[in-house]
């Protein structure tokens, strides 16, 4: 992962305020007490899913190391919590065990958190991807976070279209919703802006875990002429394997997927949650238990395009990506619509 050394800009969206404000935070929160800061995370898939769950877990590990190891920060996790009531009881359990911060890492956990948070006013909670801190219900101890997945989608779409010889790209999605959908929409926009003649084919397997069907989906894309593939969820590993076998390129999201297939993965949009985590910790230590929402963007460094050093990406392609990122950062490009006229 990438742990920026400089101060991170975090965009904090206050629902009340309506306009995002930018605050500066210090990289390492001061830990005053001797007892460690205790973080628990509950997640739908596993800490090694090469996707959403792993991105957050590794973020926690990075912060832990920065803070000085397990003595300074304790991390507990519950994985495989696809069933929401199970996740809710895990969250409740952590809260009653006195954890400082309990992260419910899945948008489906929101409504449970809404019920649990008021029961534990001393505990900080966080959830994502969402921006809703339930402030409207008078809840003040919930953080919310989300990734502007479409931003990286746009950038990678540009890159894919640039590199594609056939002008055909394939997207392998799990279900048409949430973070995955945003990413895909961004990718389609980026690709078609870069190459107006480009075709972006989409498939959904209806499952977050069906690796084999995902592989078939990738195969179908390739047969239909695609030479650039992307997709989201933990099941894309299947598609990556197929891309590799067929000499197609892959673009990853949520986590740096290079290690899965070093000769296939061109670049990944990496979610870097360290800034968010550190700010939540710092806020809590400053007495603010919640009511802040965070968005990962290119601008605040939460989203990073990680290139695979093993693959030669033409300089002009990189330049196009850089231009796209710059455009997104300065607002001249809307990742879901294209350049703003």
């Amino acid at each position, binding site marked *: 992962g990438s742990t920026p050394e400089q101060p991170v800009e975090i965009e904090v969206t206050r629902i009340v305020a309506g306009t995002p404000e930018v605050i500066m935070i210090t990289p390492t929160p001061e830990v005053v007490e001797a007892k460690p800061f205790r973080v628990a995370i509950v997640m739908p898939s596993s800490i090694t899913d090469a996707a959403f769950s792993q991105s957050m877990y590794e973020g926690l590990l990075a912060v832990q190391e920065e803070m000085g190891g397990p003595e300074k920060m304790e991390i507990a996790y519950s994985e495989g919590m696809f069933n929401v009531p199970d996740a809710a009881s895990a969250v409740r359990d952590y809260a009653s065990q006195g954890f400082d911060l309990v992260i419910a890492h899945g948008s489906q956990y929101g409504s449970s958190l809404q019920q649990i948070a008021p029961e534990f006013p001393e505990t900080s909670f966080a959830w994502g991807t969402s921006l809703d801190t339930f402030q409207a219900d008078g809840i003040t101890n919930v953080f919310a976070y989300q990734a502007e997945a479409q931003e990286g989608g746009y950038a990678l779409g540009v890159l894919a279209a640039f590199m594609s010889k056939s002008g055909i790209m394939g997207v392998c999605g799990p279900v048409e919703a949430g973070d995955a959908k945003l990413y895909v929409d961004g990718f389609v926009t980026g690709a078609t802006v870069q190459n107006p003649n480009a075709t972006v*084919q989409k498939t*959904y397997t209806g499952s977050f875990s069906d690796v084999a069907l995902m*592989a078939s989906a990738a195969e179908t894309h390739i047969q*239909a002429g695609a030479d650039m593939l992307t997709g989201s969820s933990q099941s894309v590993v299947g598609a990556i394997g197929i891309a590799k076998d067929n000499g197609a390129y892959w673009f990853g999201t949520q986590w740096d997927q290079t290690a899965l297939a070093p000769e296939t993965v061109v670049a990944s949009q990496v979610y870097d949650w360290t800034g968010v985590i550190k700010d939540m910790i710092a806020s809590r230590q400053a007495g603010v238990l919640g009511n802040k929402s965070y968005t990962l963007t290119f601008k605040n460094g939460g989203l990073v395009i990680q290139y695979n050093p093993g693959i030669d990406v033409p300089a002009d392609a990189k330049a196009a990506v850089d231009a796209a990122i710059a455009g997104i950062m300065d607002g001249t490009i809307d990742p879901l619509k294209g350049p703003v006229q």
Partner: protein
Amino acid sequence: MAELFTLPVLFGIIYSGIRLATPYLYASIGESFSQASGVLNLGVDGIMLMGAYTGFYVGMTSGSLWLGLLAAAITGLLMGLLMAVISVTLKAEQGISGIGLQLFGLGLSTLLFKLTMGGAISISGFPPVRIPLLGNIPYIGEAFFNHNLLVYFAYLLVPIANFVLNKTTLGLKIRAAGQNPQAADTLGVNITLIRYLTVSMGGLMAGIAGASLSIALINLFQENITSGMGFIAVALVYFGGWKPTGVLLGSLLFSFVNAFQLWIQVKGINIPSDFAVMMPYVLTIFALAFAVKRVSAPAALTKIFERGEN
């Protein structure tokens, strides 16, 4: 819709369907032997997972895919043997033992994966082998004759299994053990031995089915990589009426429709993707209900064998 009816799409579907059917073929043919002898093994999915893991891990660390395949086969065999001990010797209810085996395989394969690999890595699996001459026919060559060895083996297995079941003394004993074990027993057929044999061979094949995913088709391992394929494989045995050719038919139907629905999505045809994904399941039921000749299950299937009771 018209864009779906082109040669590239047709042969694309055939190519993908043939590949997709491979793990089902291994698992279902193995399971049909076990069921033909009277043992319902619902744990195929768990065995596939263990096979997929060991096949991948051994293949990766040793650098030899064949060694990986062997490891997967042995793992499958051992898991099958475990099922046989539980359901044949200890006479446990077959349905529940299978579910236990599935849970165990799912848990253990994930655990080992985390312990030894931490995260998914991809390898180069069995490469495609183009069959000389035939492989060069336009379209047909690509769709039928440019697959990896494990795919060819799966299809080769169909006539072999057919032969064993129908033309050998062993096959006759297997069928008798599933239909009337008491009768076979009185003729000196060792029911226990036969069932041990079929259930462990079924396990072995399920192990290979798993490996076909992890070292020949997808070429990596991820937790729960089968995502319930083992249960579909069991269902396909019923579709196939306990006959290898029937199982072939079922696996192909299911896989072709699955490949077809992906093309529907790729071509951007406007139906919700969920309904597209549903298609193979719906059509398999329909085909069995209206098109395929149905056979009744082996009379002793799921029944515990007690000597002398009749």
